[in-house]
C-alpha cells in the first residue's frame, strides 16, 4: 500500500493553481467548498465575489464563521436553484467523484457558469494502477487518502475517461493541468497517454 504524505500541502498547490486560473474580481461559486480554504484564498488574493456550497453543515458553519458566503447544499440537487450563467467561474474541486450523477452535475455547472474548473484524483495514475493491478488493493495516495469503507468517492475516473465525457458532451477544454506526486504542475494536451499515467490529480478549465 502506498503511504500518503502530508496531504494539506498537496491540496494547497491544487488550490493555488485553481485560484490563479480565476480572473480577479469575477463572480465565483465553489461547489463542495469544505471549510472554505479555497474561498478564502480567492477572496483574499483574487478579490473575487465568492460563494460556496457545501454538503456538510459543519463545513458551511465554519465558512460563515470565517466571514465567507456559504450555503448548505448538495451538488446533485441544489445547483438547479441557480440561474443560467450566474457566475463567471464555477469550481468543483475534488468533488465530482463524490457526486451521484457526475454527468448531470457537469451539465449544471456549465449552465450556471461561464467557465467551469474541475479537479479530481486521476484513477489512471500509475501508483493507483499498481496498487490495484499488482497489490490487489483499493489504492490510497496523496489524492486518495481514505480507505474504501470511509471514502465518499463513488465515481472514480481517469483523465482519459473524463476527456471522453467532455467530448461526448461537446465541452470545450480550455486548459488542462496534471499535478505530479511532488506537486509539480504540467500543462498537457492530447494525446493524454502520459498525463493519464503520471498525473496524480488533474485540473481542467472548461467552457461550452
Amino acid at each position, binding site marked *: 500500500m502506498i503511504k500518503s504524505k502530508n496531504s494539506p500541502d498537496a491540496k494547497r498547490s491544487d488550490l493555488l493553481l485553481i485560484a490563479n486560473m480565476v480572473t480577479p474580481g469575477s463572480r465565483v461559486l465553489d461547489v463542495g467548498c469544505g471549510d472554505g480554504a479555497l474561498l478564502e484564498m480567492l477572496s483574499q488574493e483574487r478579490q473575487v*465575489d465568492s*460563494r460556496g456550497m457545501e454538503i456538510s*453543515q459543519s463545513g*458551511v*458553519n465554519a*465558512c*460563515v*464563521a*470565517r*466571514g*465567507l*458566503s*456559504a*450555503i*448548505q447544499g448538495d451538488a446533485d440537487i*441544489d445547483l438547479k*436553484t*441557480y*440561474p443560467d450563467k*450566474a457566475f463567471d467561474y464555477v469550481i468543483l474541486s475534488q468533488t465530482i467523484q463524490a457526486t451521484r450523477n457526475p454527468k448531470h452535475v457537469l451539465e449544471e455547472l456549465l449552465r450556471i457558469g461561464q467557465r467551469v474548473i474541475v479537479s479530481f484524483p486521476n484513477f489512471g495514475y500509475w501508483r493507483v494502477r499498481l496498487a490495484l493491478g499488482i497489490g490487489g488493493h483499493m489504492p490510497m495516495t496523496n489524492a486518495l487518502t481514505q480507505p474504501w469503507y470511509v471514502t465518499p468517492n463513488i465515481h472514480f475516473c481517469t483523465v482519459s475517461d473524463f476527456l471522453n465525457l467532455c467530448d461526448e458532451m461537446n465541452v470545450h477544454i480550455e486548459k488542462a493541468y496534471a499535478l505530479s506526486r511532488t506537486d509539480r504542475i504540467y500543462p498537457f494536451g492530447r494525446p493524454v497517454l502520459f498525463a493519464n499515467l503520471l498525473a496524480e490529480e488533474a485540473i481542467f478549465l472548461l467552457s461550452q
Partner: protein
Amino acid sequence: MADIKKETPDESEDNPAGRRLDPELVSAAGIAVFDHSQPLKLGSGASLAPYQIAYQTYGTLNKARSNVVLVCHALTGDQHVATTHPVTGKDGWWPRMVGPGCPIDTDRFFVICSNVIGGCMGTTGPESIHPETGLPYGLNFPVITIGDMVKAQVNLIDQLGIADLFCVIGGSMGGMQALQWASSYPERVFSAIPIATAARHSSQNIAFNEVGRQAIMADRDWHSGNYQRVNARPNKGLAVARMAAHITYLSEKALQRKFGRNLQDRDQITYGFEADFQIESYLRHQGFTFVDRFDANSYLYITRAMDYFDLEDDFDSVLSNAFKDTKTRFCIVSFTSDWLFPTSEARHIVHALNAASANVSFVEIDSDKGHDAFLLDEPEMFSTLRGFLNSAAQARGLSADKAGSFA
C-alpha cells in the same frame, strides 16, 4: 459609551434612548410621533394617524451614519432587546446577541429596536386611545401587516435621519420583517439576517394562532375587544393562548429532557386537575406571567399580521422576484429542532435568493431547543453571525471589532 448592561431601570426611564443619539440628530426621546399629516398607509387600504413608535437605541451612531443595526422583535417581544424590561424587571430578550462584545456589538454598531405597530409597549396599537372617540381603539384598530410594521420602521429611521441600515436582523416574526425590509427597501439594507423564519406563514402556524385568538375571544372578560372600557382584562384567555403557543416554541425532546413526567411539589399524582406535572406548572406560569406585560388585543392583531405574511404571493408566487437584483448580503439561520419554522422554510428562502443571484449564507444550527433556540445560548449561532457581521462590516468599510480581526 457606558456599558448599557450596568444601567438601572430607573436610569433608562429617566434618560430615554434618545440621549444616546447624536444631539443634532434626535430630539424625540425614544418615542417618534407622526401626526395627521403623516398617516401610515396600511396594506389593508386603511390608514393610521396619528401614531407613535416607541424605540430603544444602543451604542453610538458613527459620523457616516453607516453602522445602524435594526433589531426586529418577534410576536411577544418589544423594544427592550438589551435593557431591563420596565414591567417584568427582567433582562432584555436578546442579551447574548446584543450588547458590548456580543455579535451585535454595541461598541461598534448603533442598534435600534422599536416596538411594532399594533404593539402594546408604547407604540400605537389597539390599547391606544382613538383620537376621534377618546376611547381605546379595541377592535376599531385597523388590521396591520408585516409590511405595515416595516413601513412604520422606515418612517422611524427617516425621522432619525438615517438613510440606510448596515443590518436588519430578527427571529421568527422579526425574521419576517427582515425579509420584508430586504424585499421592499433593498437599497436601504446592506445586510439582512432572518432567523428561524419563513417567507410565508404555514397553514399549521395559522392554525396555532387561531387557537390562541379563539382562547382570548372565548374569555368573557374580552367583551368583544372592549375590555378596557369596563376595566377588565381577558387574562385567562390570553394565558391559554400563551400556553398553547409556548409549546410550539419548544421541542418534544427539550420538554422531555427538562420536565419528563416529573411531578410538581408532590410525590404522587392527585387524581384531580391541579398541576400535578412540572410541565403543567411551567406552562401555567408562562401563561400567567405573560398577561402582566401583554395586551390581548395586540396579540390578536400581531398574530393576524403573521398569518397574512406571504412574500411569495406578493410577487406572483415567485419568491425570487421578491429579491430581484438585490445587493443585500443575506445570512439565513435555522435550527434543527424548530418545528414552527423548520429548516425547509429557510431552504426555500435560500433557493429563492440563489435564483436571484443574491449573496447568501445559510447556516442550520444543531439544537434540541426548538424555535426558542434563537433567543438562547447557541454558541454556533453566535460564532457564525459574528463571522458574517465582521465580513459585512469589512465590506461596508466599518472598523474591525475589538479583537481587531475580521477572521
